[in-house]
């Protein structure tokens, strides 16, 4: 029997369960299954991840093959003679296959750029908020400088120096996106660094870095998770605009963002060019947000028995 199956007041009478890794994993799963929204989100994300990994085997057509004679064919269900599930784009490429392949670029860009900016932002926020004074001044001025530079300008500069490509795109998004993390983490740290439990850790003789990473950091995850889940979404869209400028992936490589951008010209006559990409982005983003929300509650020990 796990702690979760009982009412909170019964839990008080039970001996505490040793928190081994295995029971922890089982708890995670059973608590995940309790939330329908989170379960569905996990399923959606699993589908997207599997699509990205197994794209060559899953896609019915070559996503790169131009067949001008087949251009702008409507989807199968509105055109009984069609062989393309979601139709074709302006160069006659299969949209369904491109959506499957697009998951690769979009997920890679979304997740790795968030990882880079998250790590930079959280580190800067922690140091800035905890040490204050000169350290804070320096970091916050860097923040201001960063904000005053348009992402596009920085992207073009990096492209001019390093050339274009997926890795440079991730670098640009990662390096420009850390400011919100930095600011939020800083303010969170400032609000809890004078709490008595932090003082208690200092009084106990803990080292600064332990206080920062083991006492303070676990208490500020929730806003970081929320920003992270939103930024994945905006990164997927930014990738499209940067690719449009030539910084990102070449136009032939499918990504949800570029598909959305390419289809814009035809939206009046062929809305199947944009709708699948839009739906893919929104579903993924929604799933990430719901999962982020659930994760935030999961990490809060006060909600352990309620959720």
């Amino acid at each position, binding site marked *: 029997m796990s702690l979760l199956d009982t009412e909170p007041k019964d839990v*008080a009478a039970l*001996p*505490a*369960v*040793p*928190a081994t890794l295995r029971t922890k994993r089982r708890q995670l799963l059973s608590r995940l299954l309790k939330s329908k929204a989170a379960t569905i989100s996990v399923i959606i994300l699993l589908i997207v991840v599997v699509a990205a990994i197994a794209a060559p085997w899953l896609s019915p057509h070559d996503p790169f093959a131009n067949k001008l004679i087949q251009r702008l064919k409507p989807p199968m269900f509105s055109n009984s003679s069609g062989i393309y599930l979601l139709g074709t784009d302006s160069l006659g490429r299969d949209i369904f296959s491109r959506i499957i392949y697009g998951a690769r670029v979009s997920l890679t860009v979304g997740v790795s750029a968030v990882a880079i900016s998250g790590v930079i932002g959280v580190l800067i926020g922690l140091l800035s908020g905890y040490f204050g004074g000169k350290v804070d001044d320096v970091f916050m001025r860097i923040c201001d400088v960063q904000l005053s530079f348009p992402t596009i300008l920085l992207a073009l500069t990096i492209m001019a120096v390093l050339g274009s490509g997926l890795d440079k795109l991730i670098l640009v998004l990662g390096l420009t996106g850390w400011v919100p993390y930095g600011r939020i983490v800083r303010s969170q740290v400032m609000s809890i660094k004078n*709490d*008595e*439990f932090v*003082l*208690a*850790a*200092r*009084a*106990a*003789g*803990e*080292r600064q870095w*332990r206080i920062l990473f083991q*006492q303070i950091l*676990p*208490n500020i995850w929730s806003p970081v998770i929320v920003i992270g889940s939103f930024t994945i979404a905006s990164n997927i869209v930014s990738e499209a605009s940067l690719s449009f400028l030539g910084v990102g992936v070449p136009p032939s490589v499918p990504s949800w963002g570029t598909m959305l951008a390419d289809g814009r010209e035809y939206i009046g006559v062929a809305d199947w060019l944009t709708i699948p990409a839009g739906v893919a982005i929104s579903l993924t983003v929604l799933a990430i947000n719901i999962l982020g929300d659930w994760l935030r509650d999961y990490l809060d*020990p*006060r909600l*352990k028995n309620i959720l």
Partner: protein
Amino acid sequence: MSEEVLVQVKDLKMHFPIRAGLFNRTVGAVKAVDGISFDIMKGETLGLVGESGCGKTTAGRAILHLYRPTGGEVSFKGTDLAKESPEGLRRTRRHMQMIFQDPYASLNPQMRVGEIIGRPLRVHGLVKSAPEEKDRVTELMQQVGLNVSYRDRFPHEFSGGQRQRIGIARALATSPDFIVCDEAISALDVSIQAQIINLLEQLRDELGLTYLFIAHDLSMVRYISTRVGVMYLGKMMELASSDALYEEPRHPYTRALLSAIPIPDPPLERQRQRMLLEGDLPSPANPPKGCRFSTRCPMATDLCRAVEPEFREVATRHWAACHFA
């Protein structure tokens, strides 16, 4: 009580700068603690009382060097804490601990009880292995009267009194000599207060601890302390043995405080003469000239308003800062 001095506080000052303007210039300072001196003997409990905002808590924190004091000197077992390197100070913390006022804020909500109590052991390398740490935590939990099976619970699953016991176990973990109890009972119910006080007394006798007991509840302080100091606006007003202070207070401020203690007997309570203080506590950023208490003192004269009285020994081992004590 021995005559061995454990903690010596000399003219301790803790000023917090007030910053204002575009360039954050320092425009003044809140003089939270403005020159206090006293010794704490090994094995004694020194009570520290005063109104809210008089600098008691700041004094406690500055003594442990949780804040870098603005001036003065604190020596612990003969070594000046200000001269210690950060690493040396960190190591010395093993021997001096603190119990906090708010049992809700003083425990990390993300940590299990076993970890909260066990961390100081790990920090100072007092245990070599996980089983050893577990044994010591079990011992500590039993010592403060906590059910050992609660080890894997989170702080929010406990009541205020139990949380305070967790805080006490954490403070005891490294076997310190000196513990600052910063309003350790103020946030608790009266019945729980008595339990915690008894626990602290019992631990003091068993482990030979020395306490600096900061509180505003005068009757509790009298009960637990061997000597009591009275603070007002960052300064020590009177310091004497518990009995002498409560029976023969020399300073008018002490008298006013003592007259505010209710007597738990209605007929006597009705006859109780109260000495009401007028006005508010002056700002510690701009304390009055002369005696700090002169603005509210019923006995104040021109002398008091002009010259600050010296903190002097008015009777054997009885100090007071008043021209008329």
